[in-house]
């Protein structure tokens, strides 16, 4: 179990005990208008929900719409290996509220919705009750269901509108039509926290944090075979190895690290250690930061068996709306499970290759694409284990 602590890095500061404490640490919010959008563009802040989309560009798209927008702060953290959003909301709720209100003022919104994990809602509600500065908005809290896809941006909108957290067909995109049919800014809670800080300290302050190709600070959830699992804030550009060592390292010699969560992928542990944690540098190396998950595969664990478990989970978490996802992921999970348990058919590796190519881009959301990328990373990182399992030889780590 992960302890309820968030190691503060350069931006977020210590946990706040109430709003006056928060203001003492970070100072009051300045008066905010549409000029904040330009500041965010200059800050080069990229979204921390997984897709690393430029935050300024997203706000600008919402601002360009004619109707009054809605702000949807997305704290639905469907990824089972990620805890950073919940920790942020529970330990620094006022940073999130600052960012959401800043978005509301900058974009001229009428309504602000906090879409959160149910566990965080009681403490968050108390924090929100302290905020008299939110009185200009219709503010509500909506509980996000515990499902992998609940945080997908149109699923979040669908949940707020109809209490049904399932992805919708795009277009329309959220910035065009979202909550109650209004243009909607769907922004991850960590991204909003930085936006609130950038509103105070400016774009340059943020750009000067971190040494990565994209600037700032980011939250990492460390789990798996490590001495101290938990959530930590690090400057962008910190290497995977530095994060792990900074939290006490790991026992033994793990073979692989899962970076970015279930929509990220496996990487050889030695190669992974040197990777700089920022979305741009990682993308250039064909890797995704995703939602900032680092998960260490225990020494002696079989990559095929672990991958089979994840694909089974992703298949079971399909929204069951699109055929290629419903049937394709199920078929892939069945083949992976057979492969992992020593019952591989002679064609199985070929089927995995073909089907993971076939399902790409064929869902309303990126769920099948994420699963396909994850499988590809497994084939690339564990070629020997896949060969052993395909040949139905005795797997040294499984038996």
């Amino acid at each position, binding site marked *: 179990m992960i302890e309820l602590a968030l190691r503060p890095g350069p931006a977020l500061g210590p946990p706040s005990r109430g709003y006056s404490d928060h203001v003492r640490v970070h100072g009051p919010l300045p008066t905010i208008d549409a000029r904040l959008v330009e500041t965010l563009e200059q800050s080069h802040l990229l979204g921390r929900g997984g897709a690393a989309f430029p935050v300024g560009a997203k706000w600008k798209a919402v601002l360009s719409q004619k109707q009054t927008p809605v702000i949807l702060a997305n704290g639905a953290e469907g990824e089972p290996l990620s805890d950073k959003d919940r920790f942020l909301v529970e330990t620094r709720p006022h940073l999130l509220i600052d960012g959401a209100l800043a978005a509301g003022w900058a974009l001229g919104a009428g309504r602000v919705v906090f879409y959160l994990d149910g566990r965080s809602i009681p403490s968050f509600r108390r924090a929100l009750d302290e905020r008299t500065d939110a009185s200009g908005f219709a503010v509500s809290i909506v509980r996000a269901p515990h499902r992998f896809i609940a945080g997908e941006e149109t699923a979040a909108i669908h949940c707020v509108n109809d209490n049904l957290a399932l*992805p919708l067909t795009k277009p329309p995109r959220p910035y065009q039509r979202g909550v109650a049919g209004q243009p909607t800014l769907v922004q991850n809670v960590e991204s909003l926290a930085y936006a609130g800080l950038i509103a105070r300290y400016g774009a340059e302050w943020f750009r000067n944090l971190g040494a990565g190709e994209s600037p700032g600070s980011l939250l990492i959830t460390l789990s798996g075979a490590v001495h101290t699992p938990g959530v930590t804030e690090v400057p962008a550009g910190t290497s995977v190895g530095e994060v792990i060592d900074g939290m006490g390292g790991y026992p033994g010699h793990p073979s692989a690290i899962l970076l970015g969560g279930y929509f990220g992928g496996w990487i050889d542990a030695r190669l992974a250690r040197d990777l700089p944690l920022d979305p741009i540098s990682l993308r250039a190396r064909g890797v995704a930061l995703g939602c900032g998950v680092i998960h260490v595969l225990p020494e002696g664990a079989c990559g095929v068996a672990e991958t089979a478990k994840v694909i089974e989970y992703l298949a079971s978490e399909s929204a069951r709306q699109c055929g*290629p996802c419903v*049937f*394709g992921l199920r078929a892939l999970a069945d083949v992976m499970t057979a492969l992992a348990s020593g019952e591989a058919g002679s064609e199985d590796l070929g089927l995995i290759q073909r089907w993971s190519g076939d399902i790409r881009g064929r869902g309303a959301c990126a769920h099948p694409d994420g699963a396909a990328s994850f499988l590809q990373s497994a084939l690339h990182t564990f070629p020997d284990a896949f060969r052993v399992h395909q040949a139905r030889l005795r797997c040294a780590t499984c038996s």
Partner: protein
Amino acid sequence: MFLTPAAEEGDRHVLIDRIKCDGHGLCAELLPELIRLDDWGYPIIEPGPVPADLLGHARRAINACPVLALRLARLAT
């Protein structure tokens, strides 16, 4: 990428609503040049615009879809 259904300049593409599609498969029968079915009977559409000589077949395939999951649209950049 933005979609404009209006009759502007630009090539037409067959677009599919994946949530609506139930895998009836008529589209692949009527437009095999551009649409094939995966192992579960759901359409895989050839990327790129519909060639002019196939537009009539494409329209027929789109109109035949029992759940109206297909449409022709221009992709503007």
